[in-house]
């Protein structure tokens, strides 16, 4: 087995804000192989975006990261600023959520795509940067003329394509997509997903995909990791996890995305009671126990570790 492109070992991220220490990510370990695709699922506040941002160290200064993150053989947490900047563009690149806010409203999108290339010196001059911009726009399915547009002149889907083009500018090996389709319409979402899929094939990209929409992840990624209260509670091959969840939380989450045509979900919406816990005040024992329909006395005692739940599958539940 070759060395994975991304390897995280016991990564914890704690925010030290005015309200005391808030653990956002707690002892997460995961591997992502070259050319693989991993979907990180979970609800708001579960720590999925924090985890993704920690890979390129894009966290606010009050966040403390512990553990080990190895990206393309480099220890990210010990990189100096110079090496970090290089890693941010060449090893991994991130596609942010909220396509409107991530773009500068007073600059043409062509300029914004060209900028990182000029900064990082991956192109010799302005002219080359322009050629490359046009090429990148073409690759994400936008006409070259769009380079002269301002963000507000583009539709939501087009803006998302621009963000992807920006992320691709320095030929990264890992593409981190944080809720890239959330605000988009169904058809546009499908277009963007198809685009990501094609890019992944063509450029041998490794994809880390983050969203609350389990069904999108299942469609777009080979593997799936479900996060709850800062930890991975279940992981494994997408279709197996989505089709036969082992952890009660994954079950509840999967039920929120009913299979159309499946008589068992017709007129029977199902979900979990209660709300996700606040990272600052986690329940005692298994953090899921207050919402878990199967909780027993034992679940109040200790937080279960991930255990084997089938071939290539793990789940953090004592019932497994």
């Amino acid at each position, binding site marked *: 087995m070759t060395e994975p492109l991304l390897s995280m070992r016991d990564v914890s991220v704690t925010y030290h804000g005015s309200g005391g220490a808030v653990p956002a990510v707690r002892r997460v370990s995961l591997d992502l192989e070259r050319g693989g695709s991993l979907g990180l699922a979970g*609800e*708001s506040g579960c720590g999925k975006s924090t985890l993704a941002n920690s890979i390129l160290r894009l966290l606010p200064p009050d966040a403390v990261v512990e553990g080990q993150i190895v990206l393309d053989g480099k220890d990210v947490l010990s990189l100096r600023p110079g090496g970090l900047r290089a890693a941010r563009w060449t090893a991994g690149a991130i596609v942010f959520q909220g396509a409107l806010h991530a773009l500068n409203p007073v600059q043409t999108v062509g300029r914004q795509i060209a900028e990182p290339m000029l900064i990082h010196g991956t192109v010799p001059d302005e002219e080359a940067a322009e050629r490359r911009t046009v090429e990148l726009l073409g690759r994400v399915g936008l006409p070259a003329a769009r380079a002269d547009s301002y963000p507000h002149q583009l*539709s939501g*889907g087009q803006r998302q394509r621009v963000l992807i083009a920006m992320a691709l500018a320095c030929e990264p090996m890992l593409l981190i997509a944080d809720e890239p389709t959330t605000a988009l*319409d*169904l*058809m*546009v*979402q*499908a*277009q963007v997903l*198809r685009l990501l899929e094609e890019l992944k094939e063509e450029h041998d990209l490794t994809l880390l995909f983050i969203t*609350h*929409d*389990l*069904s*999108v992840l*299942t*469609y777009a990624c080979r593997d799936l990791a479900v996060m709850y209260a800062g930890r991975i509670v279940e992981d494994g091959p997408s279709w197996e996890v989505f089709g036969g969840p082992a952890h009660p*939380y994954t079950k*509840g*989450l999967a*039920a*929120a*995305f*009913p*299979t*159309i*045509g*499946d008589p068992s*979900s*017709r*007129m*029977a*919406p*199902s*979900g*979990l*009671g209660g*709300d*996700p816990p606040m990272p600052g005040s986690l329940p005692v024992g298994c953090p899921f126990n207050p*919402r878990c329909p199967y909780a027993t006395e034992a679940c109040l005692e200790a937080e279960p570790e991930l255990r084997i739940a089938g071939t290539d599958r793990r789940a953090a539940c004592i019932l497994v």
Partner: protein
Amino acid sequence: MHPGMTAIVEVEDLHVHFGEARAVDGVSLQVLPGEVLALVGESGSGKTTLIRAIQGLQKPTSGTVSVEGRVQTIFHDPRVQMVFQDPTGALNPRQTIYEIVAEGLRIKGTGGDERHLVADALARSGLRPPERFFPLYPHEISGGQRQRVVIAGAMVMEPRLLLADEPVASLDASIRGEILALMRRLVEETGLAILVVTHDLGLAWNIADRVAVMYLGRIVETGLAEEILDRPRHPYTRALLSVVPETREMAQQILVGEIPDLTRIPSGCRFHPRCPLLQSDTLAPEIAARCRGEDPGPVPLGVGAHAACWPVLSGN
């Protein structure tokens, strides 16, 4: 579904134009007591304008909206209540939950035991014990609870129709099912009708009796939820369904481009420039010509199944 039953809401040949833009361009629909109708469409389909017109917040250019047989002329009708997409924004941060739920009663000025009515509405919306929520402010409860407060504030008015605009889109996925189950239960318990606007076809499968699909200011297909979601006939509905990740295996038909501008509605069938059926060249030439040149017309008033598509209408 039952002939002779009075519809709660009847929209007849409704047009709402903003200058050149035809946001609603000839829509007719009925919602019967005790049913959930899902209005499905992408942004730019005109669905938001349509529900604003039903609510009385938007003046129609032509056509009528009537509630229980009476044409909506007044600005507001207490029998029609709203559930919003973003419960956090829908609640005034400076009002307590009690004041929020009691607000409608105070505006309507009906007598009765206000405290009892508020408690009852909160309890029916799943906030128990209701007294515990009375003094709280919106920021002190969770997102799911906020949406329940919005629903309680609507239910306290004893509405006949609930208009729900993407009621779970801004909520965490695991809470979604609970809110949908609450809406379904209210329909069954009170005989209320719900018109739910959504782009989420899974939601329609979960709670809707009927589905109406909207494209560029018109309903293009309508029918029972099982028919529409299991055996869609209009090519737009088919394409939409094919890209829902939750659908069981179905060949994906990703349409090219985005919904055209409402100021430039194509002539002929408004869907024809993007229609995969027309592009597939399998249609008989005379039908294809109709698609390009002749408007298949709006879906007629009623609850029957209909697809505004020439190949379907000509039995192809």
